């Protein structure tokens, strides 16, 4: 292998690889009840209740066991209605489904730490 080729491939590697952040599959995540996401619940997600919602700022406050947090909702944030307690299918939700008092689980977006990657809202 000549040096030029190695250099060329190295440059191509730098250009072509986005080294995309490892991505969990969100399509099946929708069906996992609050608090049961493997490797996430109890480790890197926030579990608690919504205390207030700010539609203008597209954010809401929540109280966890230990503190309160403000969570941003981005256009890419996935919102799901967890109806598993009622033995009904979980549904896609929207920002309007966020209501004070609702029990929620939040996974933050690793590439945008103030925004949620997904939100599960306990629903009937």
């Amino acid at each position, binding site marked *: 292998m000549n040096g030029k080729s190695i250099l060329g491939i190295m440059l191509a590697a730098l250009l072509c690889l986005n080294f995309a952040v*490892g991505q969990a599959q969100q399509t099946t995540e929708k069906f996992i009840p609050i608090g049961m996401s493997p490797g996430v619940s109890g480790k890197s997600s926030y579990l608690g209740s919504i205390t207030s919602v700010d539609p203008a700022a597209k954010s809401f406050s929540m109280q966890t066991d230990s503190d309160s947090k403000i969570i941003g909702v981005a256009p890419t944030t996935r919102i799901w209605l967890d109806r598993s307690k009622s033995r009904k299918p979980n549904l896609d939700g929207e920002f309007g489904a966020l209501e004070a008092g609702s029990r929620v689980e939040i996974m933050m977006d690793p590439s945008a730490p103030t925004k949620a990657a997904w939100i599960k809202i306990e629903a009937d």
Partner: protein
Amino acid sequence: MIGAVGKYSTVRQHSKTTFAVILLTFLLPACKMPPKPTPEPTLVEIGEQIFLNETFAGNGRTCGTCHRPTDNFGLTPSFIATLGDDDPLFVAETNPDLANNFENPVLMREFALILENQDGFGDLANNFNMRGVPHTLAMRTSIDSAAGPRTGWSGDGAPGDGSLRSFATGAVIQHFTKTTNRIPGVDFRLPTDDELDALEAFQLSLGRQAEISLPLPLKGIVAARGQEIFLDNTLGKCNACHFNAGANGNPAIFGPNAGNLNFNTGVENLPDQPAVLSGGKVPPDDGFGTPGNGEFNTPTLVEAADTGPFFHNNSVETIEGSVAFYNGDAFTNSPAGQLLIGATGSAINLDATQVVAVAAFLRVINALENIRSSNELLERVIAAEDRAERFVTPILARARSETRDALDVLRGGGLHPQSVARLMAALDFIEQAQSTTKAKRRTGYARDAIAEHGRARNDLSGP
């Protein structure tokens, strides 16, 4: 009289002695060799039982329904053809609740394609992809990347934290459900943390635990030339993305911890894909992410030759065809192909003899891995001489399958007839080990098979 009494006494004495001897004959072995307690199952063994038997209260499928132990923990059309119609693989044909939008039975039976909804479950009739079943061998070496774990064909197959441990949770939701409502606790139950731990341990135990180191001292002229082409970054250029014929990027090019990488190699743009030719609905597969970016992750090549059909959509049947793919327009015009041209000044352009040579190299390293793996399984059989037959039976079945695969990949390429003869002898010993009920004989046959494997290996490669 006295004599008669004495004689009677003597007879009685002898009878007592005889009785005692008989008693001891039966009892002593039991005293000398108390039955060995069954050892506590290891985490890997627990994981194996879950993998093969646990349905998670779903439609009857297990992990092993699609990842068959004697089909390299994958699934091929030829294996599917051996299954009865009541096999849980065909649940879409037998369960009316799963008749629509759960599988495509025609594509499953013809091309071993499984329906996936990796971009969402909102429009089941239109938003799906048909993908092959990737084997679960050598995952110890092929999942990690600088960007996190990569599972499944596009590297984003697991929910939760995206790890192999979490993969089973997503698989249960996608493939085990009783209805397309997918309600936890109704249509299935989710794996527990303990089950996920065991499943991960089992999957990581399968196949190769370390990378091979190229170049190997191959004895076959064509395979050795194929290895040179494979390693030549101006000719085959294969070793850049399949370092040491594995699933990871070359650290000299992509950095020391790059690991498993995603690329858009244009497989989706191949003309005349078998599944598309069938006339069924086969939406384009956008790969990594939702919506996808067209990328799929790099599979390991050591295990490739006996695990076709190839690529995420099972679009190429032979290992020669999969090497030739990199000569064609689909790859050359793809993002990965274009960048390779930009970097090296030329596309991959192998002639037929070179394509066959690279494929011969892949066939030989696959056979070497089959032999290693079969020997490892046979060693387990030998070590388990005292354990129940039901414990060794599935291990022997896998050993036989590995040896059979070695035979098939060599014969399929017209390679190493001497080695093939040795492998046939090894296969015969394994089949004798399978048919005997005597543990010691089984052990002997296993040792004989290992010896034949050694001779076969010596014909393929130097030490």
